[in-house]
């Protein structure tokens, strides 16, 4: 379970970088987009620490702006380093996904045969 959570966190980091690369946005909206994409069990409690970690790593830049509800909220955008990490994630993800797909496709074809 712990390993699954770690893997999920890694994948989420990549997804969050991708979402933020498309437009400057804030934590709550990032979470909504992830839920809409099918990560139905994801909540702000998971996304918020990831955003902080990415900001600390220097991959995201945050700017505080007023929100309609009163307190200021952080809007994030990708830094150059963040952009590089995003590209690297896409590369690794595509490779990994290809390999995993290959293994499962082979298994499915063996079962059918």
């Amino acid at each position, binding site marked *: 379970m712990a390993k699954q959570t770690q893997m999920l966190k890694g994948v989420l980091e990549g997804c969050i970088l991708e979402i933020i690369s498309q437009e400057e946005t*804030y*934590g*709550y909206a990032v979470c909504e987009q992830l839920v809409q994409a099918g990560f139905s069990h994801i*909540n*702000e409690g998971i996304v*918020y*620490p990831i955003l902080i970690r990415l900001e600390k790593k220097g991959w995201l830049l945050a700017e505080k702006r007023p929100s309609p509800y009163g307190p200021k*909220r952080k809007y994030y955008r990708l830094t150059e380093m963040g952009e590089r990490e995003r590209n690297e994630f896409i590369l690794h993800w595509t490779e990994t996904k290809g390999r995993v797909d290959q293994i499962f496709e082979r298994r499915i074809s063996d079962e059918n045969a």
Partner: protein
Amino acid sequence: MKTRREKMKKSFSLVIAGTVVLLTGLFLWGSQISEQGQIGSGQGIIAAIVLALAGLATFVVYYQAKSRNQKLKNLRENYRESLDQVMEQMEQSALHNWEKKEIEQELLAIFLEAQEAGRQPQSVIGEDVESFAKDLLEAYGIHPGILAYFLTSTQWYILYLLIVQAYRGRGRNEFAYFGASVDVEILVLFGWLSFITLPLIQYGSKGWVAGKRKRGLFAIFGFLSFLVGVGIIEGLHALEARIPWASELLAKQVSVFRHPWQLAMAVLFVIGIVWLKQWLRKKPLR
């Protein structure tokens, strides 16, 4: 919306804190006057300064909490409770105050939006608040535990020694400035203040103003602990005729910073602690 009961509770806590500070100060001051027939040994003045600082810190925490209540007024009870639970974990951590404020502001923005969407706090941060708080602290590179408490208390202790040196050394010529001697009992009392009284007051006062009555009692215990420390020393004084080691201990004097290099080392030590705290957080110095 803050209730009348909450208002009264906070006013009451302020009055209690103020009274305890005043009584402790008077008690200590009085003991110095009766012992030496006049004020001016320095001990009473230093103790009064320390108490005034502790009292001031309590006032600051109180007013910070008051403005916090104003900020959280639109948050419903269940969300307020969840926010308090998370912030309680943050308060006990080694986070900087500005980081705590940042987290609270950010969580408040998230909570208000979720509240507007008709969601429950559990759907926002999960059922396990402690796990969420742990994730948050890890994201900030925090290592919670006894080390942060020890480092902060040591910082306080060295600060007191520097105050003593500055006070006892004043008025002397540059050659005699160093090596001011201080009673062992004062050093013990400063240790008590740094490692017991102040951490208790800090921990308790934040809990009290956040409405955590049980935790808030720590603030009162903090002040009372100072009286206990003073009481132990006064007790030793009362028994010194009968207990030889007590009179030896109370008669002892220690040179705080005999040489300039010792003073420099103390300052470097404080800087070292600040650096160590930052290093432990795996992040560069700001």
